């Protein structure tokens, strides 16, 4: 049986158009490639040291 109150909690307000800019700036764009490249670079640096 669906619990209305619990289901309602799953719905969140949508972002308005004016708020989109802030959302874009705050988006974390770090991807797996960034992490791996970072790790490789760290490894290389350590080897050089």
């Amino acid at each position, binding site marked *: *049986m*669906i619990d*209305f109150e619990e*289901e*309602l909690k*799953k*719905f*969140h*307000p*949508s*972002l*308005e*158009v*004016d*708020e*989109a800019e802030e*959302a*874009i700036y705050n*988006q974390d*764009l*770090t*991807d*797996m*490639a*960034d992490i*791996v*490249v970072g790790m*490789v670079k760290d490894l290389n640096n350590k080897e050089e040291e």
Partner: protein
Amino acid sequence: MKCYNCGCTLSEKDFCTACGADVSVYKKIISTSNRFYNDGLEKAGVRDLTGAVSSLRQSLKFNKNNIEARNLLGLVYFEMGEAVAALSEWVISKNLRPNKNIADDYLNMIQSNQGRLDTINQTIKKYNQALAYCHQDSLDLAVIQLKKVLSLNPNFIRAHQLLALLYINQEEWEKAQRELQKCLKIDTNNTTTLRYMKEVESVLAMREAGRGKEKKRKDEDVIKYQSGNETIIQPINARESGGASTLLNMGIGIVIGIAVACFLILPARLKESDNAVREELRKVSEQNDLKTANIAELEQKIAELTQNNTDIQTQLDSYVGTDGAVETMKYLMDAVAAYLDNPEDIEKIAEKLEKIDPVMMAADGTDVVDTLYEKMIQTVGPSIAENYYDTGYESYRRELYEEAIPDLQKAVEFDQKNGDALLYLGNCYRNTGQKDEAIKIYEQVVSQFEGTEKARKAQNFLNEMQDEG
């Protein structure tokens, strides 16, 4: 595929042929991202939008520069009614690859149409408002608001789902099912939609089962058999109704008919009749008002006409009355006739002239009549004055002052230069105790006949009277 270290194009080798960097893991990451993109594309193709979103987000987690995946994710969001999320993805995509990017077209499509952008914003605001209503327990308002949202943006999945949830809460299962079906047409594999749908369908199935049993029981209450080509359905417990029950049924039918007439038809008729009477009354009232207004107007006219009549009558009286100008004119003509008849008959002329009121002469205002009157006075005035003076003086001399006054007054009236008459008139007044009149006359003598004996006498009398007073 470009080398993350130097940016050169990579070959099939696990290292960069330009800088020698190890790109084996990097290649796997990029390839995984592409695989997720392909998966997302496939899912989007069969309208599994939720699945597509999931795959495309995974793809971007592996490679944020996968522009195709990002653009597709924006497109999927837009299809789901999430316009702001779509715009965000396209803006990021445009920043990552400014040229030759389809996101540019998508953004232009939305930004060039201000009306569309406003509609999107309005939709979002209304959805948020509906959600607020839900939290405030104003569920009816929330339903209304969500219907508005969906009329503006029919693909807004979350709004459909929230509306379906509200219907489920209100146990309006058919409506909830319709909303969920709309959801499934847009996004075939949305977990929330499917969950709600399962709930709704289970309830509807239970209901259907209940109705099925009912129907079956009804079916069992009849006997069906084939007679030739016809199927005969006969109730088991049906009995042939007898004559008494027929009459009873007819009676009940009549009673019901009368009741219907009394409760449904009669009130309507009464209301209709009442309305007709009211209408008639209103018309009569309007006519009455109109007539009252007419009467008032006529009464006012009567008053005006009566006033006019009175004025005219007054004017007429002034013309033809005893003191009127016509009468004055007559006396003047008589005087003129008497003069022409015998200029020496002063008494007769005087008698006629005396009847003329100088005030009425002034009121008449006709130059010819005035001139004639003045001529008459100038011609016969002194003679008449002398005649009156003689009579008055005789009375004065005999100390009959009361009798002398009218004659002396006439003498002065007809000849204002007759100073003696004026002085004696003053004396008469003085002797009869009319002090004010006497003073007035003496002052007239002093001013009119200055430097004469009469004036000196008059002055002496004035002085004496002042001494006495």
